[in-house]
């Protein structure tokens, strides 16, 4: 069953390429399990199926929003893509090269092209390093530039994010949360990467600062042709930044579509429930649709069949037996749910 969904995933990706659009990143049937070890020998007794057969494509210059409850595997997926974690199987093709099987030297070269912006601007900057050193450190690893050259590049990068060269000699604690996040962005930009993974970049910030950072990220995307993978639990933020949105549930993609489709016409019952849970900043608006009961089941023992069937309002007998296959319900809109699987077959 899993194989079937993988094959379709590949097919979809191939179609996309045939249509003349360029994929910077193609993820195919990616799997990452974490062993749970027990006993004196530390044998793996079980596995956390954090990412379990995910296929996705991200086009150059676009933003893919990753959505899902905590523990659904979105951060693991992102880290496997950046090679911060080693995949168990599947492939991640970045710029034409499979990074899962890349040699260490090639990997280092590829890594220049992908950077990450972390959630917490307080713990992601070394408090004992000056801003100049923080931002120029990637250059030290990846280039042969001299220190003055590196600092010049760091200053450039700082200016791009709205800070100035005078900030090079200051320490992180002298900055506010929003400014620190700008420093984190400057560090991500200094190598001129193609892909930036934004892992909850605004959720630790005040509301009035969030919009400043979102506008900055948008501006940078236009100026440098960046491709983003954007993780956020604020769905309004995802809607605002994303071209396409992938909804994850317990290590699987349940729905993937252009952002507008996901928010206007969500198809998967899980996506629908997720959308219904968003509080709307309008007192006249009433909550419509069902809210989900209970919590996400443990990824240690995901439910058989469709993993969402234990919480699904439209569950059918087949759901607990057979895993739904991802199918295209409208152009570019893929859903893995038995409600649509039968019609498509």
């Amino acid at each position: 069953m899993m194989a079937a969904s993988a094959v379709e995933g590949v097919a979809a990706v191939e179609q996309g390429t045939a249509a003349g659009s360029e994929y910077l990143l193609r993820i195919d049937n990616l799997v990452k399990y974490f062993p749970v070890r027990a006993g004196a020998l530390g044998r793996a007794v079980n596995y956390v199926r954090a990412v379990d057969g995910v296929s996705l494509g991200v086009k150059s210059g676009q933003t893919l929003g990753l959505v899902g409850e905590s523990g659904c595997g979105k951060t693991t997926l992102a880290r496997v893509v950046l090679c911060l974690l080693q995949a168990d199987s599947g492939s991640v093709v970045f710029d034409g090269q499979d990074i899962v099987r890349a040699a260490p030297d090639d990997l280092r070269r590829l890594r220049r092209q992908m950077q990450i912006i972390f959630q917490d601007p307080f713990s992601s900057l070394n408090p004992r390093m000056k801003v100049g050193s923080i931002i120029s450190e990637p250059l030290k690893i990846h280039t042969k530039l001299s220190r003055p050259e590196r600092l010049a590049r760091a200053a450039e990068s700082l200016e791009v994010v709205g800070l100035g060269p005078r900030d090079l000699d200051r320490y992180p604690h002298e900055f506010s949360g929003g400014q620190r996040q700008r420093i984190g962005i400057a560090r991500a930009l200094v190598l001129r990467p193609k892909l930036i993974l934004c892992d909850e970049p605004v959720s630790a910030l005040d509301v009035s600062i969030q919009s400043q950072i979102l506008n900055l990220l948008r501006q940078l995307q236009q100026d440098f042709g960046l491709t983003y993978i954007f993780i956020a639990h604020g769905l309004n933020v995802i809607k605002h930044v994303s071209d396409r949105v992938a909804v994850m549930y317990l290590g699987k993609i349940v729905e993937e579509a252009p952002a507008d489709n996901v928010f206007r016409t969500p198809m998967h019952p899980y996506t629908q429930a997720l959308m219904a849970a968003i509080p709307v900043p309008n007192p006249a608006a009433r909550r419509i649709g069902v809210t989900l009961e209970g919590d996400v089941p443990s990824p240690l023992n995901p439910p058989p069949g469709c993993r969402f069937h234990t919480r699904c309002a439209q569950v059918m007998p087949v759901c607990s037996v057979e895993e739904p296959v991802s199918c295209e319900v409208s152009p570019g809109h893929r859903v893995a749910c038995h409600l649509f699987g039968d019609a498509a077959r």
Partner: protein
Amino acid sequence: MAITESADQRLLEINELQTHFFTDDGVLPAVDGVSFHIDRGETLCVVGESGCGKSVTAHSIMQLVPTPPGRYVSGSINFEGRNLLELTREEMRQVRGREIAMVFQEPMTSLNPVHTVGRQIAEAVRLHRSESKKEALVMAEEALRLVKVPDPHRRVHEFPHQLSGGMRQRAMIAMALSCRPKLLIADEPTTALDVTVQAQILELIRSLKAEVGMAVMLITHDLGVVAEMAQRVVVMYGGKVAEQGTVGEVFAEPLHPYTRGLLSCIPRLDQERGELQIISGQVPSPLRFPTGCRFHPRCPEAMDICREEPPPATSKDGRYVACWLYDAGQGGGK
């Protein structure tokens, strides 16, 4: 919905409260002349960013502010006719938990990891009622059932780490409600939770509120949560109340430039992608609040007077706003 003036309706009234912190770096006027009230059975949302004084206000009501370095400099907090700031320690202990209960943001850190959930709820019960341990544990189980924790009979004997985040927050609410308080203060109760769980918890607070008949003071930075939960809204900025009114008024016609900025800078689902409106500048630190109106460095409508003098509280058509824009024309009363 209607704000009645009858004293009977008033549950809590805060008058010109000033809670300052006296540190080595200087005085932090965290709460600096805050006045608002909560009526019986109503939901009041307090909105603001970090350092605006919303949590310190809540902690002042519960008198949980560490003194020193904090000090209740002036003002009063009247709860059912008694000024909480004048109560003795013992009297305050009777109010806390029984009359006013509080739920915090981090459900992991606010539960004790070495005691079972049931024991912690039972402890709250036994502090205020003379129940035996056994009876208290039964009440704890009942409380868990009330907040819709599945399988309460088993959960009562479990430790906090065995519960999910949403379930821990439910347990916290169960503990807070175990003595049927008249006022529940919830300080960012859903910020650490997923949207789906947030929706569950908000729904729970709403239904319990109706069931128990308590008033709720909900502190949040999420305007979506405000719109969904509040009857009235207090917007705070820089240790002061910028604006307050019913939720309909504040969302339909925000008066203070800060409220307007907040409402327009959040990305909305019904909006096309594009440049977001912003509030420029940084959230001020309480150590270095600007002179005059504390919002003036970020305010698009700042005038000369804003830089020099703090705006007086003005009431405009029965609404409260602290902004110079409304003072001149209205001849506003203080």
